[in-house]
């Protein structure tokens, strides 16, 4: 890909501080077309309450700018927040998309949560399942899909013009990389996925899914570049071998707690953000498997 010819999408970020998540609206500079990536449904676990404040901000932005949503995309089945994709879809239209390996994730977690037969494990909850190398368009922009597993088996990177949305692979260079200890995660696989991302042109803008600040950094940051990552990423800068990375990542993961919202998030996100079916009293319940994870 010739870097000089890469179109430059307009990227607007939305930060959800309770879950440290960045959602994005990626806009074609030559039309009103856009895509929404990795939206957040607000969730108060203690009270079991959901809210759409964060999603409404995105809706307001899209409407204020007269944008047309072509895609509502997920980089993966998130384990730290609930997706607002169904709510955004209802308000704004657009097709939903995620990685084709979602079926692996649906199989694992469908079992873990003992989901009923109503829960299809074939990805049919999404309008499109992307494979490595697939392309799609946002107005005049072309999007291209890299399969970047490791954090989860279904993780994708969306390369749209000169911008790459890397999901949970790389974080800011001073913070490092995503954990690999969830079901289906693998540190060696993540290393190889990251190499794919780092093989993009050096000027490629990288947009992160999360930031947690780093020691000695006061501000949240969401954007970096391939070149910066190659030079400075504390976990995978040039010169760090696969073996070194795997050792570091495995040791570090062993010290991490499960994310606070993994159990609620995964069972909703495996359903493309839809809640499980209500019981016969009309009430929806999430499930917490005891002593499974």
């Amino acid at each position: 890909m010739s870097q000089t010819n890469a179109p430059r999408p307009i990227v607007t970020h939305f930060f959800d501080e309770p879950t440290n998540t960045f959602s994005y609206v990626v806009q074609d500079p030559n039309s009103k077309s856009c895509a929404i990536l990795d939206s957040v449904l607000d969730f108060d676990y203690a009270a079991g309450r959901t809210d759409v404040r964060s999603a409404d901000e995105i809706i307001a932005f899209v409407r204020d700018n007269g944008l047309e949503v072509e895609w509502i995309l997920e980089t993966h089945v998130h384990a730290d927040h609930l997706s607002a994709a169904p709510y955004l879809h209802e308000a704004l239209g657009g097709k939903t998309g995620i990685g084709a390996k979602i079926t692996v994730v649906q199989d694992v977690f469908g079992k873990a949560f003992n989901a009923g037969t109503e829960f299809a494990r074939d990805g049919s909850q999404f309008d499109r399942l992307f494979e490595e190398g697939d392309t799609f368009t946002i107005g005049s922009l072309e999007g291209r899909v890299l399969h970047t597993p490791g954090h989860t088996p279904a993780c994708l990177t969306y390369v749209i013009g000169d911008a790459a949305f890397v999901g949970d692979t790389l974080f800011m260079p001073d913070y490092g990389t995503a954990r690999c200890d969830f079901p289906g995660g693998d540190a060696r696989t993540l290393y190889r996925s990251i190499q794919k991302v780092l093989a993009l042109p050096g000027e490629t803008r990288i947009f992160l899914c999360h930031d947690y600040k780093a020691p000695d950094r006061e501000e949240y940051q969401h954007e970096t570049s391939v070149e910066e990552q190659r030079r400075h990423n504390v976990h995978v800068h040039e010169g760090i071998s696969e073996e070194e990375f795997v050792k570091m990542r495995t040791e570090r993961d062993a010290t991490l707690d499960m994310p606070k919202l993994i159990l609620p998030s995964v069972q909703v996100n495996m359903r493309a953000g839809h809640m499980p079916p209500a019981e016969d009293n009309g009430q929806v319940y999430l499930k917490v498997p005891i002593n499974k994870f």
Partner: protein
Amino acid sequence: MKTFDLSRSTGAGNPDVAGFFDPRTFSVQYVVSDPATGKCAIIDPVHDFDEKSGATATHHADELLAYVAEKGLEVEWVLDTHPHADHFSAARYLKERTCAPTAIGEKVVEVQKLWKKIYHWPDFPADGSQWDRLFAEGDTFRIGELEARVMFSPGHTLASITYVIGDAAFVHDTLFQPDFGTARADFPGGDAHQLWRSIQSILALPDETRLFTGHDYMPGGREPAWESTVREQRETNKHLAGSVTEDDYAVMREERDSELPMPKLILHSLQINTRGGHLPEPEANGRRYLKIPLDALEGAAWE
């Protein structure tokens, strides 16, 4: 951090009280023993739970059992003061290990009815049959030669009771340490006016009554503490000292409660604790699941 303290008997008829603090849930568990006979009761034991992974453990309950064994005590009762909203009760586990009967206040039946609806358990027997004994107001029982008496103290929950054992009272979520104040009254079935009246009954106990609270939140970063006296509470409790009236208190309590998020384990805990500490029955795959009702609790501040 201090997680254990022994408050020794102040004389015949009065118990030794060993307090065990759980920093994860800020809960205090007690082993109350009769120095004359070596008989004891366990009050408000914690079954460990990690809500992130859904894993349970019995570290704290086993610590209580180790203490009982080390001191050569015999467990006569496994007691809860109320169905807790912030931790799982280990009553069931300890009953299995010690064969001692379990007990709680009889109004637990009302709490069961309330949560049976929220959790949608059509077949759940909301009749208190999950415990060996349900205490009524004024009921008495013995721990060795110690006299124990039950006072209803609703307000935090409608089933809350205080156990008065010799010169010690286990007040759980009514009064906290004087520098922290009192318990919230905004859970389903809670009531600030009732809590005030329950607290007045506790403060009418003899001045030197040792009060043992159910939680400590270590205000200002001080060490955990859980013992006070009626006199100290009356004179220095930050929610009560001075000329506070019932109405003043209720207004303060309700305003403060309106700013508190729900405890992080309320939806998890109540489905264990309304079942006497039993986990839910397994599904067809053999695994047990807790249920988290969505958008069923209204009104609390956002977490």
